[in-house]
């Protein structure tokens, strides 16, 4: 066994060293809550298939203060996901060169955020207009 003990720099907390990495980790962490929301909705789908009593039990669970608190957190995280998704879109989308020039990153991000705002508002307005 070798007596050499080379210094290996610890990787613990590497992402806290730079705000860029903090934003990267925050963006990646949204995935956990996207999965959580999908699982809540998946349970709802299963309950819907089991009939009216099961569905109303699921709705009742959503009315619990802890559920509402969780959804407020989910809302904040989804808004951050939307923002970060379109922030990195200039790097993740295939490069297109209209008029031989790259699109400006601000234009790509702005278009995405505007589309999300329009669609979200449209969805909420549409749900307000569903006949009782």
């Amino acid at each position, binding site marked *: 066994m070798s007596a050499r003990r080379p210094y290996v720099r610890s*990787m*613990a907390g590497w*992402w806290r060293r730079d705000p860029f990495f903090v934003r990267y*980790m925050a963006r*990646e*962490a*949204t*995935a*956990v809550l*996207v*999965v959580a*929301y*999908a*699982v*809540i*909705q*998946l349970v*709802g*789908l*299963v309950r*819907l*298939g089991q009939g*009216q009593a099961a*569905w*109303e039990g699921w*709705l009742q669970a*959503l*009315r619990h203060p802890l*559920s*509402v608190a*969780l*959804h*407020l957190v*989910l*809302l904040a995280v*989804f*808004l951050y*996901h*939307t923002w970060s*998704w*379109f922030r990195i879109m200039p790097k*993740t989308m295939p490069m297109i060169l209209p008029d031989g020039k790259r699109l400006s990153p601000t234009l790509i991000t702005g278009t*995405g955020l505007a*589309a*999300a705002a329009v*669609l*979200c*508002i449209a*969805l*909420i307005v549409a*749900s*307000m207009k*569903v*006949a*009782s």
Partner: protein
Amino acid sequence: MKRSNAPIFWSMFGAGGMLSALFGPALVFITGIAVPMAILVPPDLMSYAHAHAFAQHWFGKACLFAFVSLFLWHGVHRIFHSLHDIGLHTGILAKLCCYGGALAGTLVAGWALLSIGF
């Protein structure tokens, strides 16, 4: 040369990420806040009759299936690729758990929607 399966996972990650970025905040607000707290939206927006009719309609079915399954594929792909960043250098087992979980969720969603009927 063996073809990579990465583009399939990547495209489902991208589709789920795009759908959740475009509609996610409104969906969370409607289903998790507005309906349970009875603010802004009609009180029976997600009543059994409404939800069942929506899930029976082909368009509602397609939306529900796409949203639930693609959100899952989006999330597990990101989680799988972040494991390395938090110091978990896992291999095939983590991949099976992540993508297997999304596949299981997709199958359950499909089965639930089929059991609701047309």
